């Protein structure tokens, strides 16, 4: 027989439940109130012992490649000074997403930009260039970052979308033979053709004669018989775009069969494994001895720290070139005259004896029409800052980027000025 015990038991259980909910609400509210005003506008000082010469040695800067900016252990004040005064009039919250290659640079820029524009809050993301483009087009972010220019079909579908170069970057091909392996320290020579065959599964082992043929005799002898695991991007990636552009430019078969693009499915499935984001590529490579991956140059320092080797790639002139600022600059110079007003241009496989073959503009994808005056002001301020101050060596050398030539910078500034509400 049921006893009328409901009063005491029932009430206390409900009370427990209500108390639990109340506690959660109070804790959340308390934490929020306590930290508001401290957490949101905190800027981190980015450490740099960088000299502004072209061949600078950048000390290990641990730029966190996620949605956070880390400070390294030896905290020092920013050595960047500017006569710019703080502007508190412009106030907005901006969202940025897209290229993981541009991502570390964005975080560097924002850390200093927000000292001069403290009321502009920018959240960055690294969901991949394709995502950056589509989100900018859809209006879910204010600034999309992309290593890839807008394709013809994208441009036609989105007439009000601009691609504005902010800097020049490049891409390396990393490989890993396992911890402590001597081959990690050797720069192997690779051509677009060899890479194309690796990425479509035709070449499957490191000691393949075609690979050996490109190396010096002593290096060729060291190549192991391990299988090659090509790693490619799972997200829609500008790195995939420029890598496959290189493959298409240098290998006829790849150009005809696969082409180039940001889609993860450009590269044939079933060959190798996939990873998300440039940082994911590094992580995957670190657990895959015998792996090879295309990684953005802003992650070169991290790749070096992790003990990966990187390749000397064959350029249009047939030379195997190193990924230095001078070689990247050579590629830019060779292509300078062909940059149109809308700045949709490829810098891949540029002519010139020393031109590095995988070089690209880093684009901000923005809509010509901005939703409000405050957002317009913030976007323009930020983009202008990137193109002018952000292109100084202090920032770019930390990510191995190269500054926009002044002609291109002018075109970019003109595009930024053309934004309106």
């Amino acid at each position: 027989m049921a006893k009328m015990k409901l009063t005491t038991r029932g009430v206390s259980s409900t009370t427990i439940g209500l108390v639990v909910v109340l506690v959660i609400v109070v804790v959340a509210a308390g934490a929020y109130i306590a930290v508001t005003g401290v957490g949101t506008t905190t800027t981190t000082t980015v450490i740099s012992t960088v000299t502004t010469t072209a061949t600078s040695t950048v000390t290990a800067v641990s730029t966190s490649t996620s949605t956070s900016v880390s400070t390294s252990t030896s905290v020092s004040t920013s050595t960047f000074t500017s006569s710019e005064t703080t502007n508190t009039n412009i106030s907005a919250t901006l969202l940025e997403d897209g290229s993981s290659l541009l991502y570390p640079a964005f975080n560097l820029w924002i850390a200093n930009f927000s000292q001069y524009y403290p009321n502009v809050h920018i959240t960055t993301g690294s969901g991949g260039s394709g995502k950056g483009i589509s989100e900018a087009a859809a209006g879910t972010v204010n600034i999309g970052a992309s290593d890839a220019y807008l394709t013809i079909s994208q441009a036609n579908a989105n007439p009000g979308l601009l691609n504005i170069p902010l800097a020049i970057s490049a891409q390396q091909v990393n490989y890993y033979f396992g911890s402590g392996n001597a081959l990690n320290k050797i720069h192997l020579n690779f051509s677009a053709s060899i890479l194309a065959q690796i990425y479509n599964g035709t070449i499957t082992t490191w000691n393949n004669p075609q690979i050996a043929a490109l190396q010096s005799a002593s290096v060729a002898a060291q190549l192991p018989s391990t299988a090659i695991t090509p790693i490619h991007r799972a997200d829609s990636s500008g790195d995939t775009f420029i890598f496959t552009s290189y493959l298409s430019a240098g290998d006829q078969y790849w150009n005809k069969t696969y082409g180039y693009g940001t889609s993860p499915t450009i590269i044939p499935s079933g060959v190798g494994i996939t990873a998300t984001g440039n940082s994911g590529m590094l992580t995957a490579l670190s657990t895959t001895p015998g792996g090879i991956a295309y990684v953005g140059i802003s992650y070169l320092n991290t790749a070096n720290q992790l003990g990966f080797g990187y390749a000397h790639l064959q350029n249009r002139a047939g030379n195997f070139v190193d990924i230095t600022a001078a070689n990247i600059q050579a590629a830019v110079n060779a292509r300078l005259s062909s940059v149109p007003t809308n700045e949709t241009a490829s810098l891949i496989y540029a002519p010139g004896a020393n031109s590095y073959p995988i070089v690209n503009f880093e684009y901000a994808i923005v809509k010509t029409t901005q939703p409000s005056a405050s957002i317009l002001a913030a976007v323009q301020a930020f983009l202008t800052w990137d193109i002018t101050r952000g292109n100084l060596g202090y920032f770019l050398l930390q990510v191995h980027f190269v500054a926009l030539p002044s002609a291109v910078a002018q075109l970019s500034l003109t595009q930024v000025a053309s934004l309106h509400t």
Partner: protein
Amino acid sequence: MRRQRTPENRGDRAYRLATAAVAASIPIFMFAILIFIFQYSLPAIRFNGLGFFTTSSWNLGNLNTAATVVKNGVTGLPGASYGVIGLLVGTLFSSAIALLIAVPTSIAIALFTAEDAPRVVREPLVALEDLLAGIPSVIYGLWGITVLVPLVQSTIAPGMSKVLGFVPFFGGGTNTGYGLLTCGLILALMVTPIISSTVRESFAKTPSELKEGALALGCTKWEVQRRITIPFSKTTIAGASMLGLGRALGETMAVLMVGGGSYAALPSKIYSPISTMATAIVSLLDSAFQDPTGLALYSLAEVALVLFAVTLAANMAARVFVSGGVTKAFVSRSEA
């Protein structure tokens, strides 16, 4: 005899209508999702036709021209082709491996927990099992990346290749730990607590007269279990397996983190990287937006439709076998 309906007074009627309106939100949500997915995938269904189910590819087509093609009244990019077989195989194989491991394992655990464990141990064991069932799948994925992938790469895969290598599917290169095998293992781990808790309850309900009768006849405990307990719960075991299958089919995050990723290729070996329909939706969504014709998005909706249909089939099968419905199995803890 027909129960006599007492006339309902106005207050009760209002209450009934009010709660009915609220309860209607469930079918409304359900239909909203179903209708949306179906309608959104219609263009893709027309464009892809039956080829969607017989080929394996995910090609957005040529993005670098302004030209488009029209097929069956639907616009797409030249060269666009979508086929779900690769994803379907990835989904079904990983779930099949998971079930192959999980069902016998769950029965063993259920037997132990229901029958063998000393009373003191039983309660904590059940609590641990519930805990295992409640762990979010990202954490399974985290553990997968940190522990399971290196383990498969260094020990399990080479070992399996050596022992079973005479079968082509199990032989050969075992380079990375990311692949079908790892997915199957982690899904098995996720699905086991669900199956075993349902089966355990069913075992506990076995009429003791039957068991005691068998014991009286001189059967060992195992023989009792084999001939009485397990057959008695046959339908529940089948139903619980279907439940587990439903869970494994829809699992996204853990498989995304350990699967290796391969959108169109069929796994040639058990160590090959795979994508499932669920992980493909996560990975391919943002690249799908590049297609100005929208066909890629519609095709993803078609993938979602197929995924939904497959999980629905599994859950309905479970419903038939497990009395009281699917949610009951999950909320049965509330009945202790």
